[in-house]
C-alpha cells in the first residue's frame, strides 16, 4: 500500500477538508481538460490571437512608421488587392507558377526515384540517410551555397553546364531565369521528401495485383501506370499537399538569394507582403495580403483533398 501511495503524488488529501478537498477533487475529475489547458492557452496567445489581430488589421489603413492611429477602412484593402494592384496580381500568378513547377518536378522525380529504389540493395540505408539531409539542412545556409554555385562567372554550375556543352546560364542573376533557379533549389531540398513518402507507400502495397497482372501479360509500364500509381495515390496526395502548402509559403530561399529580384522577377506573395509590412510598414495592407495568401493556400488544400477522393 505504501508503495502505491508513492505512485500518487497528486492524490486527494482526505485530511484537508472544505475548499482544498473540493479543489483537488475538481482537478482529478477534470484531468482531461487540465492536461491540454496550458497548450490551449499558449495556442490562443501565440496562434489564435495574432490571426484574429491580422484579420482585424486587414480592415485598417495604418503605417507603423507614422504616429497616426489605425484608420478603419472596411474592405478597401481587399478591393485594392483584387482590382487595383497589378504588382499583387503578378505576385499571385508567380506564386502559383512557382508552386506548380516545383511541386510537379519534385513529384515526378521523387516517384521515379522511389520506384527505382523500391527493392533490396546494398546501400539502401545510405540512400535514405543522404536523402534526409537536404530537407533538414538550414535553408539559409543552403541558399548561401547556391548563391556561390550560381555565380555567373565564377560559379561551379556554369562550369559544369559548359562542360556538358550547354550555353552559360544566368541563374538568379537575370529576371528571365531567377524564378526557375529558385525552384531548382526547392527541388533539390524537397524531392527527397516525396521520394521517401512514396517509398513508404510502395513498401506497403499488396503483391497480388502484380502477380495476376504478370499472368495476364502486362508490361512493366502498364503495371506502374495501372496498378502502382492508383494504389499510391492517397499517399502521394498527402505528400503533394504538404509540399504545395510549403511551396506557396516559400520565403527563406527567395529572400536570401534574390529578395524578390531582379526587377521583381521572383517576387512571390510572401516576399511582396513581407516588404509591404517591414520595408514600408504598411501594416493594414500587408495584413490583407496575408489573409489573401491564407485563403489561396486553404483553397488549394481543399482542391487537393477533393482530388484524394475522386480520380486523377
Amino acid at each position: 500500500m505504501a508503495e502505491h501511495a508513492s505512485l500518487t503524488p497528486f492524490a486527494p488529501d482526505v485530511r484537508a477538508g472544505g475548499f482544498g478537498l473540493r479543489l483537488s477533487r475538481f482537478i482529478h475529475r477534470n484531468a482531461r481538460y487540465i492536461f491540454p489547458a496550458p497548450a490551449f492557452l499558449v495556442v490562443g496567445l501565440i496562434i489564435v490571437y495574432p490571426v484574429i489581430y491580422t484579420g482585424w488589421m486587414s480592415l485598417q489603413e495604418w503605417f507603423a512608421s507614422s504616429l497616426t492611429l489605425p484608420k478603419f477602412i472596411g474592405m478597401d484593402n481587399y478591393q485594392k488587392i483584387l482590382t487595383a494592384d497589378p504588382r499583387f496580381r503578378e505576385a499571385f500568378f508567380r506564386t502559383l507558377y512557382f508552386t506548380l513547377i516545383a511541386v510537379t518536378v519534385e513529384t515526378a522525380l521523387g516517384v521515379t526515384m522511389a520506384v527505382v529504389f523500391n527493392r533490396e540493395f546494398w546501400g539502401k540505408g545510405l540512400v535514405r540517410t543522404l536523402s534526409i539531409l537536404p530537407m533538414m539542412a538550414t535553408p539559409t545556409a543552403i541558399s548561401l551555397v547556391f548563391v556561390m554555385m550560381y555565380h555567373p562567372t565564377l560559379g561551379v554550375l556554369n562550369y559544369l553546364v559548359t562542360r556538358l556543352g550547354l550555353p552559360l546560364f544566368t541563374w538568379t542573376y537575370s529576371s528571365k531565369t531567377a524564378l526557375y533557379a529558385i525552384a531548382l533549389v526547392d527541388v533539390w531540398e524537397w524531392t527527397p521528401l516525396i521520394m521517401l513518402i512514396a517509398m513508404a507507400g510502395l513498401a506497403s502495397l499488396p503483391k497480388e495485383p502484380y502477380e495476376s497482372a504478370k499472368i495476364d501479360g502486362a508490361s512493366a509500364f502498364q503495371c506502374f501506370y495501372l496498378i502502382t500509381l492508383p494504389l499510391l495515390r492517397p499517399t502521394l496526395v498527402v505528400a503533394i499537399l504538404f509540399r504545395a502548402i510549403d511551396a506557396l509559403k516559400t520565403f527563406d530561399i527567395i529572400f536570401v538569394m534574390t529578395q524578390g529580384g531582379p526587377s521583381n522577377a521572383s517576387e512571390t506573395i510572401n516576399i511582396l507582403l513581407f516588404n509591404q509590412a517591414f520595408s514600408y510598414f504598411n501594416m493594414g495592407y500587408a495584413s490583407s495580403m496575408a489573409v489573401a495568401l491564407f485563403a489561396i493556400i486553404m483553397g488549394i488544400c481543399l482542391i487537393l483533398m477533393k482530388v484524394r477522393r475522386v480520380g486523377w
Partner: protein
Amino acid sequence: MVGNTRAQKLLKTIGFYGLVTFFMLPTVFVFYWMVTLSLKPQIEAAAYPPIFFNFSITFKGYLEVFAKHPFLLYTWNSLVVAAGTTLLGLIVGLPAAYSIAQWRQHKFALTILVARIIPGISYLIPWYILFRNLKMVDTYPALILTHLVVGLPITIWVMIGFFEDVPSELREAALIDGCTDYGAFWRVAVPLVKPGIVATAILAFIFSWNNFLFSVILAGRNTRTLPIAVFNMIGYEEINWAPLAAAATLITLPVIILTLIIQRHIVTGLTFGAVKG
C-alpha cells in the same frame, strides 16, 4: 550461356548503381561543395575553372568567420532560443498530446493543424507590433514565443502518434493500482515514450535553429541568431567565399548530426504524423 547471363547480371547491377549515383549526386555534391569551399584558400575558392579535388586545405575561412564577426555570440543566441523553444514546447505540448491521444480530443488537434497552413507572416505582423509596444524586440522571450508557433504544433502532433502507441490497458492498470491520471501520465506513459520525446525535441530544436522569417524581424544586435548572421554576411563578404562557406558549414553541421540521430522519425515529423516513415 551461363557466362552470358552472369555478365548480363553484372551489367544490370552496374547500370542500377549508375542510376543510384546519378540520382544521389546532386544531394552529395552541394554538401561536398560547401565543405570543400570552406577549406580552400581564397585564391582556390574563387578559381575558375573550379578546383574539385586537388586543393590545399586551410582553416583560414573558419578563423576569419570568428575574427570578423561575433560568431560565438550568434551561436549562443541560436542555442538559447532553440533550447528554450524545445523545452517550452515539451512542457506545454506533452500533456496536451497525451490528453488528445487518451481522450480523443481531435477537434483541438485539428485546430493546431491549421497553424501549419497559416502563412508565418500573419503571425509576424501582430507579434512585431505587440513586441515593439512592449519594448521586447531583440529579446530571447520574443524569439522563443514566436518560434513556438512552429515548435508547439510539431511537438503535439508527433507526440500524439507516440502516445497512441501506448496500450491503454497500462493506464487502466495504473488507475486501478491507485494512480491518478497525473501519475499514469508521468510514471507510466512518459517513460514509455522517451524515444519519441527525444525525436520530437530534436525536431523542434532543428526547426527553431533553422528559423529565418521570425528572427530576421524580431532579433536585433543582441539576440541575432545564426541564419540571420549568415544572411548579413552575404552582402559583407561578396566573393570572399571561404568564410561564407565556413559559416554555412558551421550552421549546418549540428543540424546534420542531430538529423542522423533521429533519421527514422524525420518524415513522420515533417508530415505531422500523416506518413509513418
